[in-house]
């Protein structure tokens, strides 16, 4: 065939800048620069430590969710699976054969028992995810519906397990959630961030370099094509949802450790925050496009935004603006300055919305 000769001419033209792909990174940069300008001392190692610590839980949950979104499914039970696992862990920890009520004899618990107290909740979460996956592929219903039901099931279980009480968690978890290694000056590397990085590196290697990872992408990209090529797409979906259960549970345990105990008010926002992170990084909700690298960007963007908003001191900001004094005094009394705390979720939502809409439009234009 005359294929060989014209290849040189047909070689792809010099690649143009793909704004759709770069948009998440640019958003992150813009958010960092903005907060650098309005928050005193934002560019510091302390802030970085804070971001890493705040982002760790989210990053772990978002990793599993990335798998699920890549194969064009969704898991709405992430937050409640995290809660249930943490509750189970707390309840087990307070059993007489472990640390006893309020974790009183925590110091004397054997390593084997501690491992069991942590491993059982993780296993239960995997089974929950596996069940969601099985039901999704066998019923032909969207995973949206199945995991919505699973969300309520796990919330109910968590309530029943704890009888709405607060429970102590293993010392290992509290240390994992709170301790950090002092490295440079006031830069502290939180252990939870190291765990999150470890989970993400493993996930990245699995997605980019193993057959399973490739099947996840292809199942999400075109399920029919994957099936017709002999890929057992049903198993891939089940595996992704099981994995997501595992990372959700891990996130729940780390979060309980960070807060030194587990109670029903935890993880309420974990699901939506994790979805926001993954999508903010540029992973498609329709499957087949995305990566752990993008999820890292998404988590950093989201956490920076959250931390930055918390550090923003509007009163000081208003005082420093070069505007007439009478405006300043009026503004300082205005409710949007005095009650700024209440406005934070609103601002978070507005910025997220802006970023997502701009990304969406850029990607749409590219396609």
């Amino acid at each position, binding site marked *: 065939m005359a294929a*060989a000769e*014209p*290849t040189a001419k*047909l070689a792809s033209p010099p690649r143009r800048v793909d704004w759709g792909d770069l948009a998440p990174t640019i958003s992150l940069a813009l958010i960092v620069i903005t907060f650098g300008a309005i928050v005193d001392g934002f560019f510091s190692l302390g802030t970085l430590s804070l971001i890493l610590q705040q982002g760790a839980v989210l990053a772990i949950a978002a990793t599993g969710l990335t798998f699920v979104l890549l194969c064009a499914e969704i898991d709405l039970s992430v937050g409640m699976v995290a809660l249930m696992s943490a509750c189970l862990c707390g309840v087990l920890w307070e059993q007489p054969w472990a640390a006893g009520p309020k974790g009183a004899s925590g110091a004397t618990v054997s390593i084997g028992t501690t491992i069991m107290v942590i491993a059982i909740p993780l296993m239960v979460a995997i089974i929950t995810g596996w069940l969601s996956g099985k039901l999704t592929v066998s019923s032909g219903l969207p995973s949206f519906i199945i995991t919505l039901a699973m969300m309520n099931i796990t919330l109910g279980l968590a309530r029943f397990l704890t009888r709405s009480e607060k429970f102590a968690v293993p010392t290992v978890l509290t240390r994992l959630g709170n301790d950090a290694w002092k490295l440079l000056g006031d830069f502290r590397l939180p252990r939870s961030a190291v765990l999150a990085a470890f989970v993400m590196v493993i996930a990245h290697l699995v997605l980019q370099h193993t*057959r399973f990872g490739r099947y996840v992408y292809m199942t999400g990209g075109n399920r029919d*094509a994957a099936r017709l*090529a*002999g890929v057992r797409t049903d198993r891939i979906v089940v595996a992704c949802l099981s994995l997501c259960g595992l990372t959700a549970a891990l996130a729940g345990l780390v979060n309980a450790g960070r807060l030194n105990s587990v109670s029903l008010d935890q993880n309420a926002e974990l699901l939506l925050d994790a979805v926001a992170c993954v999508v903010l990084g540029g992973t498609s909700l329709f499957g*087949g496009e995305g990566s752990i690298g993008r999820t890292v960007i998404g988590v950093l963007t989201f956490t920076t935004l959250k931390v930055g908003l918390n550090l923003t001191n509007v009163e000081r900001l208003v005082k420093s603006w070069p505007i007439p004094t009478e405006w300043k005094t009026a503004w300082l009394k205005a409710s949007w300055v005095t009650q700024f705390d209440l406005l934070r979720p609103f601002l978070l939502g507005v910025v997220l919305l802006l970023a997502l809409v701009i990304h969406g439009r850029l990607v749409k234009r590219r396609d």
Partner: protein
Amino acid sequence: MSSPALLTAEQITVRFGGVPALENVHFDLAPGEVHGLVGCNGAGKSTLMKVLAGAVPHYEGAIQLDGQPVKLSSPRVALSHGIAMVYQEMSGIGQLSVAENLFLGRQPLTRWGTVDWKTMRQRATEELAQLDVHVDVRRPLRENPLVVRQLVEIARGLNSGAKILILDEPTSALSPPEAQRLFSVMRRLRDRGVAQIFITHFLEDVLAICDRVTVLRDGQNVSAGATASFTRKSMLDQMVGRQADAAGQETVEAMLPPASEKPVRLATKKLTHAAVFEDVSLTVRAGECLGLYGFVGAGHQELVQALAGAAPVDSGTIVVDERPLPTENVTTAVSRGVVFVAADRGRTVTRRAPIAHNVTLAHLKRTMGNWLTRPREDAVARPVLERVGCRPPDPRKLAGLLSGGNQQKVVFAKWLLGPIKVLLLEEPTRGMDVHAKSEVMQLVKEQQAAGVAVILASTEPELLLAYADRIITFRRGRMHKEFAGEKVTKHDLMHAAE
């Protein structure tokens, strides 16, 4: 013809990307007649009807309705002029009730502005009764047989005030009694003065129901006249067109080689999927290309998918190399070397993924082992892409950027990385130009020469005559006639299929 024409279309020319699909075609329709429109695949029947239905706004030529010139620039405009089309495949919205389908977009309202369900049901029941359809109009449309769904679609057209109904292949998926039922409705409508254009492959149906016939070939008028002036044979002759083909390149007849003596690669026994294909028992030998010919809906395309494990099977067995092959299991079929190339590349190519990922997908373990890396994957994909002549053979490019023919080559490249015993092809060259077509079929021939058994299902007689060693025709889900070791023409094939 005595009455003045209801519709006249003069000098209709349509080009798609510079290639003419219709050239100076004339068509006219009298009030209250059933007008048959016949021709082979690609003759331009559908294009002409799409022009009349307003779906091809860029046509050239003049259309007159009741003596008034009109410009049919959109389906809405066509409908407002009283032209309604009943499509073969898309028959209403299955989940909605029959009544809702009948009044889609025109529901009767109460004075509160809500849907007047009672009136709607009543009127739906009445209007369907006029077409001799007696069903519970509250039930979802999908619970009704196809013929009822088509009649509902017709009723919907009439309900919107249509004077001209276009029926696109209405009988191809109907059983003979159902087709008779449709015909009796068509006769009734004719008596009511509704003009109908009837597009079909089944010449017997044309002779049974039509008053006049227009024959198209290669986008041009061949003949038109009262049905009585045609016979089945004369219609077929004009559709196929002997003289024209001598000049044209496409094969219209072929000398099939004598039966192969090589070992049997694949055999099926009484393979059945109710109402799709039934009782199919066939064999293919190594190095042989078995052609399956039939019209759309004849079941041969679904059969090929079922052989690949990609479509359901109710009963019957498949044997490959003397070992039974489990049905409805693509993974096993692929590992046994039974591979499938679909007409629709959207089903086999992941457009948003790089070409390399598409190529290695089926045999990832064999070609890449346990640890995938980009350079190694490129090294695996590039040679096979060059071998199939994919342009460009760049493994990193997104598959969606390739043309249809090159996407099909990617599908071949994917299978070439593993063992192939049986190559199943469903209309593998659909929508490709002549050059891409021959390149893709060249790949098939190479495999055949290497001892692969090929099953080629198509609705294009030319493709089968050019490449098949043996041809079986399908008719309404069943094997009808086998051609082997003899001279066979396009005419024979079409004759056997309809």
